C-alpha cells in the first residue's frame, strides 16, 4: 500500500492506494504546532471501518492490505518558514564589491504606481554579509583567492555565530574552485553548521537568482532537516517501508536527499495536486489541462501540457526568487474564505482579504461575521448544511445569510441575489487570473480542459469554463484530496544539472557526450536503478529565457530541430535566423511510482441515481437540482445540470447547459451542450 499525506493549512488529507487498486481516504484537522501529530493520526485511522468524530472517511470500501510500503509526504514546512520568516540566521559570504546583490534584486520596483511600496527584505541581514577578495570571470580567476583571505573570512563568519552559511561567488557556476575552498574551510571550522555553496545548489548563470536560491537553501536547511528527523521514529514504529518527501518539481525524495535540498520543498504541498491532476487527465485521455485548486484562502492555477505538468525555473516564494525547477503554480487571491465588500465607487469586490481558517467564513460559527464566498455558496443552496466538513464543523445557514445580507441595499435586497453576485464576482476574478496564467505561457484556454479541485474548486468549474470559452471539464473522483492522491502516486525523482554555454552549431557529438558523462554518473549514484532522462536548456543567443529540450542522443544536430519546433509551438515563431546556444545540461533520474490512477473497486461505486433533489440558486434562477453522491457513482452514469455532487471532501456544481458522464476511472467528464 502506498500512502500520500498532504498537510495543508487547515486540513491534513490522506489517500492510501492498495496494491489491488483500492483506495482509502482520511481527512483530519491539521495540528499547526506539530504537523506530524495530525499526519500520523490520519495514518493510524487507516483500516478503521468507521469514521471517528475527529476524522472523515470519504471513500467507501477501504483497502484490504494493511502494510504501508511507502509514505509520501507533502509538507508546508519550507513554505511557511519563508512566509513567516522563521528560518535560520544566515551569513552570506560573497565576492567583494557585490555584497548588495540581494538588495539590488533585478532593479525593478515592487509596484508601478504605489511608489512607497518596497520589496520584502532579503533573508539575510546586511551586516551578516562577508565580502571576499577574489574574483572569477568567464575565463577563470581574475583575482586569486589567498589562503590568508580564507582564514580571515572563516574568522569573520565565526564571529557572527551563524546558524547556517551560504557561499556564493560570481561565476561559480562555471569556476567553482574559490567557492569550494571557502566552503570546505567553513565546514571544517564550523562543525554542525550547514554550509551551502551556490555551485552545489544551482550551478547556473545569472548571479542574483543563484545567490538568492543558495541563500534560501541555507535559510531553510536547519528547520527542514530537524523536521525530517522528527518523522523518523513514528515511521519506524509503524513499520512503514519507506518515507519520501514531495518536491516543487513533482518528484519525491528520500528524507536524506530532501534534507540537502530544503529549497526544493518550497512548493511541496501544491505540487502533489498538479501530479494528481496530470494522473486524472491521463486516465481520461485528456493531455492538456488548466488545473485550479481552490481552497480556503487562495486558488492555485497550473498547466498540464502534453500530459506533463508545465515546469519553470523562474519562480519566487514569498517574494524571494527561487530558481530551482518547479511546477508552475500561480496563486490567485480567491478562495472560499475571500471576503466580499463594496468599494467607494459602488462596485462589489471579492478578496484579496480572506477570513482564513480562523475565524473563517461566517457560517463556520467561529466568530466571523463578514460575508465570504463560502457563505454565498451556502445561501445559494450549493453546500449542504447537514453534512459536516470535518471535525464536527457544521455550516450554519442563518449566520451565512446574515453576513451576506450585511452588504445591504447597495447590492440587492434579497440574500440570494447578493450571494449570486458574490460568486459571479469571485468567478470573474478567477477567470481573469486563469487567462493571464495560460496566455502568458502561450496557451489559449479555449484549447484546454479545465480540472477544478480542492474543497471549493468544483463549485466554480462551470462558471470558469464558460467565462474562458472552455468546453470540457474533468472532475476528479476525490477533488478535495487530489493532492494526497498525487503524492501517493508520485515518482521518486532527482535532477542534477551543470552549466554548459556553447554555440550549438559548433558543438560536436564527442563534446556533448563528454559534457553529459559526469552528470549521468552523479544521477546514477544518487538514485541507483532509476531511468535517466537527459535534457538541454537552449536559447537563441542573447535572449533572456531558455527552453528545456530532451537530449537523448549525443549528436547535437537533432537538438536544433527539436528546439526550433518547441519554440514554434510555445512562442509562435522560430526566431529570425538567430544562432542557437546551449546554456545548461540536466539529467533527471526517475523511479516510477506506478503512476496511473487506480480503479476504484465495484462496491464503492455502485450508485446510479440521484439521492435527492434540492432547491438551489444557479445563474440567478431558482432551480431544482438533483443531488448525487460524489465519488460513488458507477461508470457510465450520465447526469444533466443543474446537479450537485456532494462528497465528504468537496462539493461540485453542474450548471444548466452542462452534461456529465462518469468515466470508468471514477472521474466525471463534463461537456458543454
Amino acid at each position, binding site marked *: 500500500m502506498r500512502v500520500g499525506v498532504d498537510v495543508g493549512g487547515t486540513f491534513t488529507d490522506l489517500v492510501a492506494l492498495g496494491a489491488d487498486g483500492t483506495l482509502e481516504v482520511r481527512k483530519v484537522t491539521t495540528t499547526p504546532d506539530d504537523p506530524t501529530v495530525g499526519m500520523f493520526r490520519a495514518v493510524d485511522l487507516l483500516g478503521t471501518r468507521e469514521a471517528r468524530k475527529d476524522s472523515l472517511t470519504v471513500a467507501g470500501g477501504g483497502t484490504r492490505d494493511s502494510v504501508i510500503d511507502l509514505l509520501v509526504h507533502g509538507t508546508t514546512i519550507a513554505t511557511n518558514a519563508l512566509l513567516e520568516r522563521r528560518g535560520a540566521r544566515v551569513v552570506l559570504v560573497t565576492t567583494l*564589491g*557585490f*555584497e*548588495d*546583490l540581494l*538588495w*539590488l*534584486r*533585478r*532593479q*525593478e*520596483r*515592487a509596484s*508601478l*504606481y*504605489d*511608489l*512607497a*511600496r*518596497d520589496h520584502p527584505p532579503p533573508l539575510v*541581514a*546586511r551586516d551578516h554579509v562577508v565580502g571576499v577578495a577574489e574574483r572569477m*570571470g*568567464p575565463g577563470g580567476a*581574475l583575482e586569486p583567492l589567498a589562503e590568508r583571505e580564507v582564514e580571515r573570512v572563516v574568522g569573520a563568519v565565526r564571529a557572527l555565530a551563524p546558524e547556517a552559511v551560504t557561499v556564493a561567488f*560570481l*561565476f561559480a*557556476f562555471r569556476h567553482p574552485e574559490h567557492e569550494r575552498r571557502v566552503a570546505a574551510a567553513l565546514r571544517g571550522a564550523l562543525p554542525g553548521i550547514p554550509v551551502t555553496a551556490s555551485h552545489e545548489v544551482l550551478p547556473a*548563470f545569472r*548571479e542574483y537568482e543563484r545567490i538568492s536560491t543558495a541563500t534560501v537553501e541555507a535559510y531553510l536547511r536547519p528547520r527542514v532537516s530537524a523536521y525530517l528527523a522528527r518523522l523518523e521514529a513514528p515511521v519506524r514504529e509503524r513499520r512503514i517501508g519507506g518515507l519520501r518527501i514531495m518536491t516543487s518539481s513533482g518528484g519525491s525524495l528520500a528524507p536524506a536527499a530532501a534534507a540537502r535540498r530544503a529549497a526544493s520543498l518550497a512548493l511541496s504541498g501544491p505540487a502533489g495536486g498538479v501530479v494528481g491532476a496530470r494522473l486524472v487527465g491521463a486516465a481520461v485521455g485528456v493531455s492538456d489541462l488548466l488545473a485550479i485548486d481552490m481552497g480556503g484562502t487562495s486558488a492555485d492555477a497550473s498547466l498540464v501540457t502534453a500530459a506533463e505538468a508545465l515546469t519553470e525555473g523562474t519562480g519566487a516564494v514569498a517574494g524571494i526568487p527561487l530558481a530551482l525547477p518547479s511546477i508552475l503554480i500561480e496563486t490567485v487571491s480567491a478562495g472560499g474564505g475571500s471576503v466580499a465588500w463594496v*468599494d*467607494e*465607487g*459602488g*462596485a*462589489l*469586490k471579492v478578496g484579496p482579504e480572506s477570513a482564513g481558517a480562523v475565524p473563517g467564513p461566517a457560517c463556520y460559527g467561529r466568530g466571523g461575521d463578514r460575508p465570504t464566498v463560502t457563505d454565498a455558496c451556502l445561501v445559494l443552496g450549493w453546500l449542504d448544511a447537514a453534512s459536516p466538513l470535518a471535525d464536527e464543523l457544521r455550516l450554519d445557514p442563518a449566520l451565512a445569510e446574515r453576513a451576506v445580507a450585511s452588504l445591504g441595499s*447597495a*447590492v440587492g435586497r434579497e440574500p440570494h441575489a447578493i450571494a449570486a*453576485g458574490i460568486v*459571479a*464576482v469571485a468567478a*470573474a*476574478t478567477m*477567470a*481573469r487570473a486563469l*487567462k*493571464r496564467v495560460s*496566455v*502568458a505561457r*502561450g496557451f489559449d484556454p479555449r484549447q484546454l480542459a479545465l480540472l477544478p479541485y480542492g474543497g471549493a474548486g468544483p463549485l466554480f468549474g462551470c462558471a470558469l469554463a464558460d467565462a474562458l470559452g472552455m468546453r470540457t471539464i474533468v472532475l476528479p473522483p476525490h477533488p478535495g484530496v487530489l493532492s494526497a492522491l498525487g503524492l501517493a502516486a508520485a515518482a521518486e525523482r532527482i535532477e542534477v544539472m551543470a552549466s554548459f554555454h556553447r554555440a550549438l552549431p559548433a558543438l560536436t557529438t564527442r563534446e556533448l557526450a563528454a559534457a553529459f558523462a559526469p552528470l549521468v554518473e552523479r544521477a546514477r549514484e544518487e538514485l541507483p536503478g532509476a531511468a535517466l532522462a537527459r535534457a538541454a536548456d537552449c536559447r537563441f543567443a*542573447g*535572449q*533572456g*529565457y531558455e527552453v528545456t529540450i530532451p537530449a537523448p542522443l549525443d549528436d547535437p544536430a537533432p537538438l536544433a530541430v527539436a528546439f526550433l519546433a518547441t519554440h514554434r509551438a510555445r*512562442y*509562435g*515563431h522560430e*526566431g*529570425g535566423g538567430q544562432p542557437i546556444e546551449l546554456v545548461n545540461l540536466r539529467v533527471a533520474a526517475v523511479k516510477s511510482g506506478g503512476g496511473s490512477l487506480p480503479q476504484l473497486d465495484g462496491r464503492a461505486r455502485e450508485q446510479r441515481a440521484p439521492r435527492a433533489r434540492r432547491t438551489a440558486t444557479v445563474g440567478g434562477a431558482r432551480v431544482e437540482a438533483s443531488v448525487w453522491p460524489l465519488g460513488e457513482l458507477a461508470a457510465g452514469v450520465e447526469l444533466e445540470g443543474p446537479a450537485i455532487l456532494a462528497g465528504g471532501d468537496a462539493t461540485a456544481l453542474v450548471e444548466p447547459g452542462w452534461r456529465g458522464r462518469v468515466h470508468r476511472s471514477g472521474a466525471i467528464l463534463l461537456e458543454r451542450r
Partner: protein
Amino acid sequence: MTLDPVGLEVMGHAFASIAEEMGLVLIHSALSPNIRERRDCSAALFDPDGEMIAQAAHIPVHLGALAESVAAVRALAPRPGDVFILNDPYTGGSHLPDLTVIGAIELDGRVGGYSAVRAHHSDVGGAQAGSMPAGAREIFAEGIILPPVRWTPEVERLLLANVRTPEARRGDLAAQRAAVERGGEGLRALVARYGGEGVRTAARDLIEYAERRTRAALAKVAATGLRATDWLEGDGVDDVDLPITVRVDIRDGVFHADFTGTAPAARGNVNCPLAVTRAAVLFVVRTLLPEDVPTNGGVQRALRVAAPEGCLVHARYPSAVAAGNVETSQRIADTVLLALANGGIPVPAQGQGTMNNVTFGGGAWTYYETIGGGQGASREANGPSGVHVGMSNTRNTPVEVLELECPLRVRAYALRRGSGGVGKWVGGEGVIREFEALAPMELSVLAERRRHAARGVAGGASGAPGRTLLNGAALPPKVGARLEPGDVLRIETPGGGGWGPNPFRARIEQ
C-alpha cells in the same frame, strides 16, 4: 448608471482581461528582447467613439497614450476589419521607435471598437543603429516616419526597406498583428455572451465608474496654484539647463497641469509631443488613485494638460523627439510630483528621475543598459533603494550575462550608501556600477540629475546628485567618449529625496 455593483466588477474584469490578453500575446510571441523582456509595450481596447475601455500598460510611459493614436486613425474613416500602422509623433505617435498597430473591430458589419498595440522597436532606420541618435536635430535623422496608414503588404515592404534588421521587425510586427486580432476576438466573444448593446452600455458605465473614482480621489486633494520648476540638464547638443515649469490646479475633481513657462523646444532630441507629456502627468494622477481603479478613458476625463505649442513639452514638427520619451518624460513627472509636494499633497519626494542610459559599442556589437537609483521617501516609508522610478521599470542585465557577452568587466555593483536624502523618512539609495573596458569601444551616457538633485519634501533633504566618472574624472550628464582597454567608467546614480525634518534618525538598515 445601468450596471449594478456586480455587473461593474464582472464586466470590469472581462474588459481588462481582453487588454491583458492582447499584451501577453504580444510579449510572448515577440522576437526582440526589448518587447519580450524589457516589456516596452502596451495594449488597449477602445469603444467606437475612440474612448479607452481598458489598457495593459507594461511600463508607465505608455499610459493612456494610445488614445491619440486611435483619434488619428478615426480621422481616416476606418472600415470594419481595417488595420492601421503609425509612428509619427506629430500624428498620434510618441517617438519613432514606437510602432503602433490599430485594428478597427468588426461587429455586425460596423466598427464596434478598436484594438491598439504599441511596441518599442529597437530599429526604425535613421542615422544610427538603435534609432535614438544622440545628436539628432530634426526628426528625419531618427528614422522612417509613418503617418497613420492602412497596413498593407506594400506599406510593410516600404517600412522594412528602411530598417537595418528587417527580419526582427517582421517578427515583432507579426506579434503585434496577432495581439490586435486577439483583441477583436475578445470583444466579439464578449458580445456573443452579453449582446452588443449590453457590452456597449457596460463599457460606457465602466468609463463613468473610473471617472467617478478618479474625481472622488482627486476631490480629496483639491488645491490650486501649485507650482514647481525643475531642470533638464542639456539636450544632447548644448549642455545648458532647460527649465520645465508647471502649475497644477485640482478643482472639482479635475487635474489641470499647465506647462506655461517651460523652455522652448530644444535643438537636440529631448523634446516631447504633447501625448508623451500627457502620459507623464497621467502617471502622477495614477499614483494618487487606489490600485483597483481601472485604467480607462474615465481617468483621462479628469485630466487637462496644457502647454504652449513649440515648447519642450509640446514640440512642433520637425523637432527631434527620440529622448523625450526616455528622459524628459521622467522630468515632467518629477516636476508635477514636486508641485504637489510643495502644496502639501501627500506624494513621495522626488526620485532619481533618470534612467542613466549607458551604451557601449565596438565594431560588431552594441550593449545598452539603464541603471536604477533612489526612489523618494514618502510620508510613511523610506524610499526604496536601487530601483527604477517614474516612467520606466526595466530589469538589469546580470553581471555574468554582461561579461559573457561583451568585452566589459563589472568591478563593482552596489548601493550608494548615504546618497538618499535624510529626513524623518530617508530617500532611497542610488546605485554604484563600475565598468572596465577590455577592448577599445565607444561610450555614450544619457543621464540627468548630475547637477539638480532629487528634492526632499516637508523639510526632508535632497538626495545626492548622480555622477559619471571616467578614470576618476567627472563627465557631463550627456556625453560620448572613446574608451581604451583599462579605462574605468563609474556611474553613481542619484539618491531619492527625504521626507520630513528629522536629521537625527539614521537610515534603518534591513
